[in-house]
């Protein structure tokens, strides 16, 4: 599973903050507990990725998409994450759209077409899928 342990770790400070915000004020978290949660989080990413990838392969796709990750959550019995994830995803997509438009305006002004080409290919896939997903995913998310 882990090739080089350092690369597969998540930043301690961020993990600690997430834990502290989740627990009641003043609860102590032992260093060992913190490190264990961090490892667990990395394992979770691997497990989720593997699971999502199975869904992608079922759909004969080589690129993992949002739907694959959501399906993985259900499969892994983390159904409770699906609604909040969908909500966050909508905010994220709006943000990304906003950023893209800002970049495009900037590019037009600077007249540098190279920037568009050098953008990651995932963003292109992303565009196609955003349109697909938006057609499929129009349900309201209840809280």
């Amino acid at each position, binding site marked *: 599973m882990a*090739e080089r342990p350092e*690369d*597969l770790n*998540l*930043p301690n400070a*961020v*993990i600690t*903050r*997430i*834990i502290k915000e*989740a*627990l009641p004020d003043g*609860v*102590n*978290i*032992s260093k*060992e*507990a913190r490190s*264990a*949660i961090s*490892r*667990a*989080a*990395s*394992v*979770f*990413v*691997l497990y*989720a*990725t*593997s699971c*999502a*990838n199975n869904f992608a*392969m079922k759909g004969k796709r*080589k*690129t*993992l*998409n*949002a739907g*694959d*990750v*959501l399906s993985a*959550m259900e499969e*892994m*019995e*983390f159904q*409770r*994450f699906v609604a909040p*994830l969908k909500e*966050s*995803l909508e905010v*994220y*997509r709006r*943000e990304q759209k906003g950023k893209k438009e800002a970049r495009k305006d900037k590019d037009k002004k600077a007249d540098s077409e190279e920037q568009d080409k050098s953008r*990651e*290919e*995932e963003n292109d*896939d*992303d565009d196609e899928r955003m349109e697909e*997903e938006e057609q499929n995913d129009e349900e309201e998310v209840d809280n």
Partner: protein
Amino acid sequence: MAARLSGGENRLVSLPLSRIRVIMKSSPEVSSINQDALFLTAKATELFVQYLATYSYKHGRGKEKNALTYSDLSHTAEECETFQFLADILPKKILASKYLKMLEKEKRDGEVGEDDEEDEEEEDEDEAVDEDVGS
């Protein structure tokens, strides 16, 4: 690339997407990852951390001392089906002295040691060894 709103704590996601991507890509079967999928995985991981921490705190003995301990976590991995995929990386711990006694007993009895002695002593955490010595 990271989905950050300007100004500190109110970010959409705190975990760095670049790091999440590194972990995801370490999976050999994965070719490419759409940006939305990357974001969702990062966000899901945050939700997971919150869930694991709160569940373990709620169901564990650490809260008797207003703490979240390692044994709360390993207890969760063992008892709760949803978290069972973590059982191997969160093994239960026993005191070194107890482990040595187990070994002696095994020698004497010529039997495989049993898993009875699984006391989790929080004060002595730094003396504990992994039961799962094989890994």
